[in-house]
């Protein structure tokens, strides 16, 4: 803690634990409603924020559909469009334990912002096969798109200013389920 943290504004809670759970549950039902052929659906979480969310959605969909739903994770670091503008990003594992060709892939990320991560994810996914279709599920859509990309499933729309920051905290990584809005 810095000595001037006293002056920092308190972060606003956007979703608490039960709100986050409800949002995921609703997304799962929307995915189920949109996709008749449940056996064709695979989830791919974008490293890092989307990985645990994809795993949770896979469990929720398993309850709805009554069969396991495959889930993988994808690192987009090698496909970013700003690689020569900053220090090289840390690369996390890409593990997609199923063939994506012909499948309906639901890309899962925590926050949709400029859309550049999603664009990189679409490129990265392309190297693994040719899905029948790709849909996008995000927990938070905070606006400020820089590319023509929109989400198919949104947990919560949060209008933000560019000076604000969204902090998604999940039990698996940070020990709590919550989403905060912070002033930079």
């Amino acid at each position: 803690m810095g000595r001037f943290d006293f002056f920092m504004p308190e972060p606003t809670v956007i979703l608490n634990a039960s709100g986050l759970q409800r949002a995921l549950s609703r997304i799962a039902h929307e995915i189920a409603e949109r996709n008749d052929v449940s056996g064709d659906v695979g989830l791919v979480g974008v490293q890092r924020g989307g990985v645990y969310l994809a795993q949770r959605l896979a469990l929720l969909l398993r309850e709805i559909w009554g069969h396991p739903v495959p889930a993988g994770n994808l690192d987009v670091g090698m496909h970013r469009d700003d690689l020569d503008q900053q220090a090289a990003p840390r690369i996390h594992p890409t593990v997609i334990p199923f063939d994506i060709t012909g499948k309906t892939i639901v890309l899962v990320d925590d926050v949709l912002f400029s859309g550049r991560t999603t664009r990189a994810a679409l490129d990265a996914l392309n190297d693994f096969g040719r899905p029948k279709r790709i849909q996008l599920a995000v927990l938070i859509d905070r606006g400020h798109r820089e590319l023509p990309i929109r989400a198919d499933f949104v947990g919560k729309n949060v209008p933000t200013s560019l000076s604000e920051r969204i902090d998604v905290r999940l039990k698996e990584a940070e020990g709590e389920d919550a989403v905060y809005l912070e002033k930079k």
Partner: protein
Amino acid sequence: MSWNRKHLLDIESLTADEITTVLDTARAFKAVGERAIKKVPALRGKTVVNLFIEPSTRTRISFELAALRLTADVINFTAEASSLKKGETLKDTARNLEALNADIIIIRHSATGAPHFLSRFLAASVINAGDGAHEHPTQALLDAFTIREKKGRIEGLNVTILGDILYSRVARSNIWALTRLGARVTLCGPSTLVPRVFEQMGCRVTYNVDEAVAGADIINLLRIQHERQRKTMFPSINEYTSLFGLNKARLARTKPDALIMHPGPINRGVEIDSEIADCGRSVILEQVTNGLAVRMAVLFLINGGKGPQEVAAG
């Protein structure tokens, strides 16, 4: 995660954290090489020059393929077919390459310090692919990667480097990398090729080959660098083979899970018995596979960090 370097000139100046960053990044690039589509667009639009003033096949091909798999454009430049033959200096050659807007120059040269020299006046990034008997950083990184992958760790392992240490840049880079990561390094070979002065680099020197390999978890064999030896350093190749070559009798006295490594090119029947080179404990070909992943990682890391942050960091 820590990598803010513009160049990779040697291992000596790297921290353990920086070495580990390369190894971690290389793991992801190894996975890329195992896919049906082995190419990623990380260096799209960048120009990489292989400036090889000293002959090489495996390192040059490895760097070339690494750059191609990152979607860079690659120019291969060898001394034999160049204006260096017409008397152009290295500095002028490099400046000409830079005038073509090369972004990364990978140099191999018989003179120690040639990459450092280029890095002082070029705007492009410089990667050392071997400078004289000084360093061969990517070889040490791929050796460390292979050891970590096979053994799960490097710290606490006994690594024996056997052969021509004096003239070997691979030995020097390996000693820096492995000692920094916590391995115990033993050097062994003819006393003329393994002077005691290497003890100052933090390793042990012994001339008893059976003792050197007995406790080793890793045995890294080095080729005799005939091209660098100005005089006779030992009586004959046959004597070297019988005294220091890794044969079946010596292998039988090693730990059953000790790995055999060699940076290549191997001289079958000289430093290594032909059957041992092909046995299950030899990871020589895996080193080649890992070399590609490590070089992709190095190119990827070097390519980053040229933005405002890097400028601010000086």
